[in-house]
Each structure stands twice: as C-alpha cells, then as structure tokens.
C-alpha cells in the first residue's frame, strides 16, 4: 500500500497541468483581453461592421444615436440627415471611424468589470455638436452641395459640421445613379479637398507679412491685367493703386500675383507647410484629406496663380477651418474635435482635451490678419449681414473649369471672447462666394449665438 500511496502522487502531474494551463490563460487574459474585446465581431461591442453599444448625444444631451439593438437614430428627420456623416448609416456605407476609434472607451472595458455597466453594457458619448445648430446648418445649406462647419477656436469643439448631400438613415432613398446624391457617402468636411480660390490669399498674405518687412507700406497698381509672357492674370476690373490691406480686402488678383512672386514660390510653399495647409488633420480617430500646393520651383505665372488659390491648390475644409481658428487665436492652432467625453455607468472613460497643434504663426502676423479680415467685413462685405457679431472673414470664388459654376467659399471667425467661433463654408457649383455663402453662415452664426449665449 505504501508504494501505491507514493504512486498516487502521479495525479499531481495532471493537477499541475490543469493549474498551469489555467494560470497561463489568466496571464493571457490580463495581457490580451483588451485586444480580444475589440476584435471585429466582439458581440457586446459590434453589431455587424458598426459599433453596437452605447448612445451618442449632442452637447445638451439630446439623443443622436442609440447604437444598441440595430441602431436608433434621433427622432427628428432633419437631425438624422444632418449628423449622418459623423455617426454612419446602418449599412456601413458611411463609415464612422470615430465611433470605432472610441470603441474601447464606449464599451468601458476594464479587466475587472469587463464590459459591465449599470443596467447593461455601453456608455454615453457626449459630442460637442449642437443638434439645433446642426439642423440650422442643414437648412441653411438648402439644396447646395458642399460643407459648412463651425468650431470653437479656443477649445476645439466643433459646434456643427454638415456635409451635403446627405440622407435620412431611417428612410434610405434610392441613391445609385441619382445625380443629386453623387458623393453622398463622403463627409465633405473631412474627406474632400477644394480649390480654395481667394480664401487662399490669407495664406499668401500671412507669408508676405512674415517675410516682407515693408509689405504694409508697399502699394500695388492694378490695371485689371498682369502679363507673364504669354500668360496673364486678370481681375474683374482695374482696381487702380492699392495698399496691401486694400488689395486683400478687394481680393485683387494682380496685386496678389505680384505679392506671391515677391514672397517667392519656395517660400510660399514653406509657409503653407508651416501653416499645415498641406497636412491632414487628425482627431477622434479621423484623418482628413490633405491639401496640396505646388508653388515651389514653379514659373512665376504658376506661383502667381498658386498665391491666389488657383493653379493646383487644394485645401481640406477642416484643415482650413483650423487655420482660420489659429489666426483668431493669435497664431496658436487648436485641433478641432467632436467627441467631448464618454461615460460608462457614471465613470468617465474618455475626456477630450483642448489639444493644441501649437503655434503656426507669430501673434503679430495673426493680429494683422485679424485686422485685415475684420476690415473685409466692416468696410467691404457689410456688418449688417451679421447683426450683433464682430465677424472677420474672407470670401473666395474658385474657378473649377468645365461648365460648372465656381466653388463659392467663405471662411472667417467671430472676434468675440464669449463666442470664439471660426467657420468655413464651401459650396460646390455655387457661384459668387460672398453672395452664396454669407446668408448661409449668417443663419448658422445666429443659431450658434442662440445656442451658446442664451
């Protein structure tokens, strides 16, 4: 019996294997469970391709989307359409990278509690969007194709960002082959690039202010036409002799063709890079399209066209909005974001910070540009479009060729400590920039004022 008693210890081998195997798993659990939980198809997080847990609200707590059980969108049809490019549709045609980006925070995973949240799983995402402003923006855009966005240049909060065309995810129309729905799946604010036209003169002006010491004292004479060998740059009419500030306000192509060449193609390119115009913006798991500029090493005429926002210039609306925000913020750019915070069962799993991309221009230059942009509205565009607001802006009308009308562009900001908003409007096939865009942005700023101040 004594021998058998000794032999019984062989069972310890089996016990050891079981214990070690289980411990091995526990180790794996603590190292890898964060990856497992986010793996595609994780049942409590994803529903088909989209994230399938949690709710999303606007800045006031109004429900935008409940992602559990097959997605419930906002009650209002306008709101559903206006916000769709940020939340995605059920079919996954419009992807919502931000929601997947925050899947872990929305799920609220931790190794102790798993995905448990009081009363179920999934958290609440509070966005910086205002449902009211978003709807106002959609209404203001009307039938135009394009994008409009407003953000707080001190905190980075996007108040609204609408891309048109869009559709109601609860009532998906026939899209394939319908011309009005061309590019409907695209979030134009983040994913498109536009020929900027005259709004690019802000970049050229900033580069000139930084590199030409006596630029403010220089004058430019416009005869309506500037020749570069066989090529020419034209204005709609002869502006006569203008100061730099006047040339900017009247958007004189001839003057800016000269200024661009005085700055020089290489330097203009370098400043565009410094202002990050050609860089993508990255926020909330989204990487925007990147703009482009080819001024370096180009012939004078191309440098001229580049400096006035034509040639091969392309800007991304989100990036350009941030650029305007930086001017308003004395040269320091605050990256936009739309996810404010995520809470799971009372616990905050994500909180946005006022992420700064850093200083992109001197505060001196920024302040002169602020003055220039203010001058545009005050003395040229008219303050009466924006009652009670100190708006600084620059319009643009970008020729895109073909039989299309120009892209109407309008960008600027409100110079007000209490309402620090920068904005951009881009309307494709729109026509004259100021004419098309001013009513749009006026309505939106009014809504913003109502939402944020009252």
């Amino acid at each position: 019996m004594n021998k058998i008693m000794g032999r019984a210890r062989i069972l310890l081998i089996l016990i050891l294997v079981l214990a070690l195997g289980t411990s091995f798993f526990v180790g794996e659990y603590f190292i890898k469970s964060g990856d497992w939980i986010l793996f595609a198809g994780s049942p409590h997080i994803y529903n088909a391709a989209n994230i399938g847990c949690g709710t999303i609200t606007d800045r006031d707590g109004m429900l935008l989307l409940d992602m559990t059980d097959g997605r419930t969108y906002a009650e209002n049809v306008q709101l559903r359409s206006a916000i769709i490019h940020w939340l995605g549709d059920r079919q996954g045609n419009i992807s919502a990278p931000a929601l997947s980006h925050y899947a872990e925070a929305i799920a609220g995973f931790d190794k102790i509690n798993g995905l448990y949240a009081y009363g179920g799983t999934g958290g609440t995402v509070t966005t910086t969007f205002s449902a009211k402003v978003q709807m106002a923006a959609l209404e203001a855009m009307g039938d135009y194709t394009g994008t409009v966005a407003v953000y707080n240049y001190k905190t980075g909060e996007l108040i609204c960002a609408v891309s048109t065309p869009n559709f109601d995810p609860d009532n998906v129309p026939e899209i394939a082959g319908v011309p009005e729905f061309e590019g409907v799946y695209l979030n134009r604010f983040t994913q498109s690039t536009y020929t900027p036209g005259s709004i690019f003169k802000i970049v050229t002006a900033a580069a000139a202010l930084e590199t030409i010491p006596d630029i403010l004292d220089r004058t430019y004479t416009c005869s309506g036409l500037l020749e570069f060998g066989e090529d020419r740059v034209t204005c709609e009419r002869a502006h006569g002799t203008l100061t730099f500030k006047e040339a900017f306000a009247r958007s004189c192509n001839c003057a800016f063709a000269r200024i661009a060449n005085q700055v020089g193609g290489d330097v203009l390119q370098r400043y565009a890079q410094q202002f990050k115009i050609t860089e993508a913006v990255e926020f909330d798991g989204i990487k925007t399209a990147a703009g482009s500029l080819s001024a370096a090493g180009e012939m004078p005429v191309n440098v001229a066209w580049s400096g006035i926002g034509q040639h091969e210039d392309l800007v991304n609306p989100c990036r350009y909005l941030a650029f305007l925000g930086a001017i308003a913020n004395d040269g320091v750019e605050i990256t936009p974001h739309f996810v404010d915070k995520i809470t799971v069962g009372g616990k905050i799993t994500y909180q946005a910070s006022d992420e700064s991309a850093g200083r992109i221009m001197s505060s001196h230059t920024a302040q002169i540009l602020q003055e220039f942009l203010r001058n545009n509205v005050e003395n040229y565009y008219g303050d009466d479009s924006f009652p009670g607001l100190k708006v600084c802006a620059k319009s643009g009308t970008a020729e895109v060729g073909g039989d299309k009308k120009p892209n109407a562009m309008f960008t600027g900001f409100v110079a007000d400590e209490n309402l620090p908003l920068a904005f951009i409007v881009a309307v494709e096939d729109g026509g004259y920039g100021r004419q098309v865009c001013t009513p749009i942005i006026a309505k939106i700023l009014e809504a913003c004022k109502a939402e944020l101040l009252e």
Partner: protein
Amino acid sequence: MDSWFASIAQMDRTFVYVFQGILRYFVPALAAFILLRTVRPLLTFRREPEIWAWLCLTNGKMLPLTHWENMVGRSKRSDVVIDVPTISRTHAVLTRYDDGSWTIADAGSKSGVFVNGEKIDICALEPEDIITIGGIPMKLKPRSREQEITLSQLRTKAANPVVSVMNTLLLTALQMLICFSYLMTAKVEVAGSIFAGFAGIVVCQWLLLGFYLFIRKPSFELETIVFFLCTLGMAAISAVKPGETVKQLIAMVMGLGLFLSLGWILRDLERVKKLRYYAAAAGILLLIITLVFGKEYHGAKNWLIIGSLSIQPSELSKVCFVFIGAATMDQIVNKKNLILFIGYTLAICACLAVMNDFGTALIFFVAFLLIAYLRSGSVGTIALACTSLGFAGVIALKIAPHALRRFTSWRHIWEDPLNTGYQQTRSLMCIASGGLLGLGAGNGFMKNVFAGDSDVVFATLSEEWGLLICLMMVACIIVFGLFSVRTAAMGRSSFYTIGSCTAAGILLVQTMFNVLGTLDVLPLTGVTLPFVSNGGSSMICAWGLMAFVKAADTRQDASFAVRQSQEGRPEDE
C-alpha cells in the same frame, strides 16, 4: 406560480439592475466563502491511520497493520518494515478480508514464507498461527471488538453535522440568488423550467444530507462542492437552453442513484471482486451496442437514441473502466491480470476508434495510463504507452481529417474567427466582456454560440458570472484530485486508492480538455466538463466517478461508502 413568475419577470428594471449590480460581487464572494469552508477540511485533515491488526514479534514488539493489504519486507517503502538481511525487500503480503480473516502470501521472496513451519505460497491465517519469514517468527493479532471501538473513538471525526448543515444552507442561499436572477431576466414561458431545475438541486442536496445525517456520516464537503458545480451547470443551461433544466435535473437524480448504489457496492470488497466481471462485460457491451445502433452526431457515432432520450454510453463505460482497472494487491502481483486489462483497454479503444470518438478515447487512454502506473509503478511502461499513443495519434489524424482541423486552428483561432476559430474567439471575447465579475444572469451572448452549455460552458459562465467563479470551478476539480492523493495514504486496499485516483484523474483530464480547449490553450476536443456541461450521460458518469472518490475517504465517519467500526462487522448486517 405562473403569476409569481410573471411578477418577477416584470419587476421594476431599476430593482433588477441594482440587484444584478450587487449580485456580481456577492455571488463570487459567497461561492468563495462556501468553497473555503468545504475545501479546507478536505485538504488539511489529519491522516490518522486505521489499525487493523498487529504483527507481534517474539521480542514483544507490535507492528501495526494500517491497511487491508500490507507488504512486509526490508524495503523502506514496505508497509511493515523489518530491516533484517534475511528478509527480502518485498517479502510477503498480509491481506485482510471483509469478514475480518487474514491471509498471508509470498510476494516472491528468496527465503520463502512459513506458517507453522510449513512453506506456503498463500495461506489463510488462524489465530495463534506462527508465521516465520527470514527466520523471524511472529504472530498476527487482529484487533478485538473493544480495541476497534476504542481506536475509532481516538480518531478525529471527519465532520460536524452542524457545519455540514451550515454549508448546505449557504449553498442554498447561493442557489436561490442565482435562480432568482435568472427568473428576472428570462422569458415567462421558461421561468417554471428554470425554477424547477434549481429547486430540484436544492431538494436533492437536502435529501442527501438528511440521509447522511441519519446514517451518521455527516461529512458533506465533497457533495457540497459537487452540488455547487451542478448549480453552475444549471445556470449555464438556464442561460442557453432554459427548457432543458428538468432533463438535466433528472440526469442528476439518476447520477445520485448511481453514486449511492455504487458507493454501497464499494463498501464490500468481496462483492466488488465478484461484480468486476459483470462490469467488464457491461463496459464493452455498452460500446458495442452504440456501434451497432448508435447515431452519428457532429462527426462521432457515440449517441444512442431511445425514444426521446439520447445517451452517450461511452460515458458510462468510463465508470465500468475504473471499476475494472482498480485492483487489489493480490491482483496486482498477478501479471496475467494486467495483460487481461491491457487487452480489455485495446478492445475499448478499438470501439472508440470505429465510433470516431477522439475525445473519449483520449480520456480512456489517460485513465489507462493512470491505472497502469498505479499498478506497476513503472515509468518505462508509461513512456512506452505514450510513445505508442503518439504513433496512433499521427495515424488517427491521417485517417480523420476533422480532428486535424482542430489542431491546425489551435493557437491560430484569430486567423479564422468566423469558421474554425468561431467557438473559441467568441469564448475569449465573451470572457473578456464578462470580466472577473460577470455581466449578470441572462446578459451573455454565449447562448448564441454552438455548445454554449457544454463544450464551451466555461465561457458562458464566465461571461455571465465572471472569471472568478469559473476559476473556482476549476479549483473544485483540482480539490478532488488533491483529496484523492491525500486519502491514498490511509487507503484500506489498493483497489480503493487506484479507483479514487483514476476517477479523480478522469475528472481532471475532462476538465483540462474542456476548459483549456475553450480557452485555446489546448485544441478544442468537445469533451464535457464534469457536473457542469449539459448532458445526462456525462452527469451520471461524473457522479459514478465520485463514488470511487467517496469510497476511498476513510476518515472517521466520513463516507457512506466505507464500512466503519461500530457498524463495521459483517455479522451486523
């Protein structure tokens, strides 16, 4: 009753959420408390030997015989060590029988064994017979009735009835909480079924405890742990197939029946010896019947359908196999016996190979290895057997490609998460979702995964009740193993020790394949988790195996399957 279920199901959600929020901490805590209370005595009891007789030497020395089978020899590992050069290392075996009589047998000594001066091979001993081994005369003096009573009073009682009742009360509380939280989230149509399942377990455990207290064997630790496992199994079924709880309950009652009857059989070693041939016949017959009449299901032809009942006879064969494999000392000494056993094992493996039941064959193989080692003590034999299994395995994989697929996806489950790795990737994601404390009853996703209540039941429970509970579940099975090793020291006969260790070994191996398979530490083999997986045959088999563990529990007044002192003589029956 129905309106009561309806009112539970329609309870205010705030109450439900708060209840679940509290329960996720309380259930693991209570389970840990119950297990600590039950496991501690199983692993820390004093190993007090039972004394059955004394060998009296002429110099007045009395050597106690603490087993029914005692090896006498010079070797330090003998049960009775007489370190005299004339005595062989293993000289003789003294065996006690159920009627209290003793025999002595020569265990291959050089100088032989003499009884009353006559050289013998085997001889029944009469009182006053003089045994001479290695030239040393001695007498065997069996304990008297008075000594027996005194000795048993000196031994520590295994358990206190109050403690057993207390543990069962705590377990009942746990069961009610788990049941209640399923009733709150389940559909009203299945509420009755869920309630019946849990209530059935509660009734069974109290009846069994009542019976134990009545026969004054109050040790209920092993049973408390088993009922805890059954409760978890019922929870998994409530989550996955709430309509099948009663079916599982019936299986549990049948298992209990087997446990009690097998335990009763095991009380009497003579009876066991007689029954072994029937067990052998039954074990192989079950498999042959399955081969002839069985149904193929998921690649293995191991199901027998009788009316609405579907049973897996190979599970019951495991119990028979332990019965046959365990052997008394005199059988161990006899080589012919081992050869017969090997032949028997081969026959079983052949049946399983034809059935294509890879997982069960593996378990039989491990059981065989355990028995072979416990009987022979030869590491060489085991090595040889393992090597041959390796060859057999390679050939099997060539013949049965579905088994090979399991191996190719092993540790690569994330590369094919929707096909070969589906069950395990869902398992890992759901285990992570549940965290250490679980999402609460009915909140899991694993119910949608194939075999969520059997092959991957670990993940189902982990998701709803937390990883901690599941780790405790594995610990329970480990405790059965450790307990078997501990009781081996005070085994009466090698039959009980081998039986108990093999039974615990089978439980361990099944747990290993099931749990580690689910977790992708090992390939998924589709083996059931004892007491937990949904499946009647597996449940009955697990209870049958527990009878062997119980039969080796020779602590004083611990086990109904062990005959003891006051009641202990055949003439009492």
